[in-house]
């Protein structure tokens, strides 16, 4: 583990009062996952997918930095909860979408529920990941090469969602909101790392402008603003028309 990463883990311990454990976990679907600490689980746990070991230092620092954003005020740690009513209404509408009724599709309602859940997961993580990743880029140049490899990989995977096959099987409502969020991520990286081609797929399919608008709302750090975590997610949700889909609950860390 690079010294820079140990430094971030130490910052988390100082700010939150809990240590961070980092474990390689074969078989997880994501590149990495994070479970933040609570009174009954007195450690933050970062699980790394060994398939992405090449970016292990960066992924550890990134996850630790997202803890710093979320726990900016350890007395008031926000948790994101799916709101029943609004999501249920969307599930009902989406269940009738012909794209979920294609041959070989599982039950349309289950598909709609899963898609809504994934959309919210995207909303609750991506803007914060951008803030944390931006902080890593600016503060830890020794991680830049790993970050470049990892973000390019993520952008490649995200742009794969724009293929015709995915579009034909995804309701437009979900497809477009997800694409706009991915466009914001591409816009951030294109501006930061001069990787100008990252935005091209979104420009090609007409999501660039909306993505740039979301990106604009993500600018600005978190170190002086303990509400940044909720603020940035709320601002994206407003823009995407998803503000009624979730609620915040706060707990003492």
């Amino acid at each position: 583990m690079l010294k820079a990463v140990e430094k971030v883990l130490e910052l988390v311990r100082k700010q939150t009062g809990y240590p961070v454990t980092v474990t390689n976990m074969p078989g997880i679907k994501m590149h990495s996952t994070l479970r933040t600490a609570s009174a009954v689980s007195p450690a933050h746990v970062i699980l790394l997918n060994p398939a992405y070991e090449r970016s292990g230092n960066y992924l550890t620092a990134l996850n630790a930095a997202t803890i710093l954003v979320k726990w900016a005020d350890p007395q008031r740690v926000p948790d994101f909860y799916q709101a029943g009513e609004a999501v249920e209404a969307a599930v009902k509408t989406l269940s009738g979408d012909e794209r979920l009724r294609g041959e070989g599709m599982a039950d349309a309602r289950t598909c709609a529920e899963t898609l809504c859940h994934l959309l919210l997961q995207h909303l609750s993580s991506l803007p914060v990941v951008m803030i944390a990743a931006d902080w890593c880029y600016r503060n830890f140049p020794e991680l830049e090469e790993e970050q470049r490899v990892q973000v390019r990989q993520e952008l490649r995977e995200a742009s794969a969602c724009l293929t015709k096959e995915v579009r034909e099987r995804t309701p437009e409502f979900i497809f477009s909101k997800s694409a706009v969020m991915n466009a914001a991520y591409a816009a951030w990286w294109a501006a930061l790392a001069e990787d100008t081609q990252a935005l091209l797929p979104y420009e090609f399919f007409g999501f660039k402008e909306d993505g740039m608008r979301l990106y604009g709302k993500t600018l600005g750090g978190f170190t002086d603003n303990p509400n940044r975590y909720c603020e940035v997610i709320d601002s994206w949700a407003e823009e995407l028309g998803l503000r009624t889909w979730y609620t915040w609950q706060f707990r003492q860390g």
Partner: protein
Amino acid sequence: MEPFRFKIRYSDFSPALLAIDPELLRANPDMHKKAVAGYFQSRFAKLGGTVALQAGEDDIEVQWTPARLAGDKEVFQKALELLKEGAYDDAEPLLMALVARPECDPLVRMNYGMMLSDRSRLEEALAQLETAAEEMQDSADVWNALGVAYQRKGERSKALAALKRSNALDPDNPYTLKNLGSLLGKSDPHAAIEYFKRASELLPKDQQTLYFYGLSLYNAERYGEAVGVLRQAIEIAPHTETADSAMSLSTKIAHKNLKAAAGGKLRPDAVLYCREALRKFEGAPVEVTQAVTFEVAMLGRSGLDINNADKKYMLKSMPGEFSGLELVCYMYVGTRILAPDADPGIDLAQEYEVALELHRGGGGGTQ
């Protein structure tokens, strides 16, 4: 100077250079062309001078006239500087332009191949390095680089042949000696030791070489010699990752010596500590086990004094004061619970089994 002019087929352009899904690009040829053109436009513009692109149906012609750099040698020097800084993205277009020259210096090809190899683009790396090796058959460096790329690709016999050829050309090339040592580390530890030994004589201040020399001695169970070499490695720069690894290995040897001191027999104190750890972790959330195990492992990286019974360590994740051996037992038990297949770094298997039996049986417990 003569402008750089080269053509590249869209299908030959490495997808690793773009943050776009290759399938999406294949399905949208216009996007693919625009992405490749954009790549060259932005990269060469950043380097200064003028760029002209001629996009064809299957390929694109790039013409770059540098503003400041006077000749190929200067461009190559600039590329080497960028590689040294780790600015691979900026160095690559320069190397691409240079290798496109009909009279390209094979040294350029070798450096481009090494860069691609370091970035795990092994097919592309081998294409460059194999050509460079054909053009510089007497260069130990190119055979060494080729050996490394083959090794990374998992082609062990080709790697060995290339490295041996490098070694025959220059028996005192320390990098080849080091790579031969790494390649043979497991299959022929005695040969590996000889290669590392010579490499460490040639590079006495290279921490990695000393660490791997120590590791090869450890693998050959020559613990006494290993400890001395590892100590030298740590002294070179005590606060690096390699120093941490050397420290862990030294601790591992200390653990082995601990068993040896007990004549290879069961350590009753370790049994008791393992049993205590089993009690502590039973029923506790997995995160507690993780936190304690992780913290002890981190602490162990700077060396735990396990041959001293004094309780002089404290943890953030668990109240109380502990001896070095006690903490190592907690780590051992935690690792067995969390990742039974992982190597806990110390052999307390016997003690653990006895502790587990006592724990399950509840004999003498304080429930």
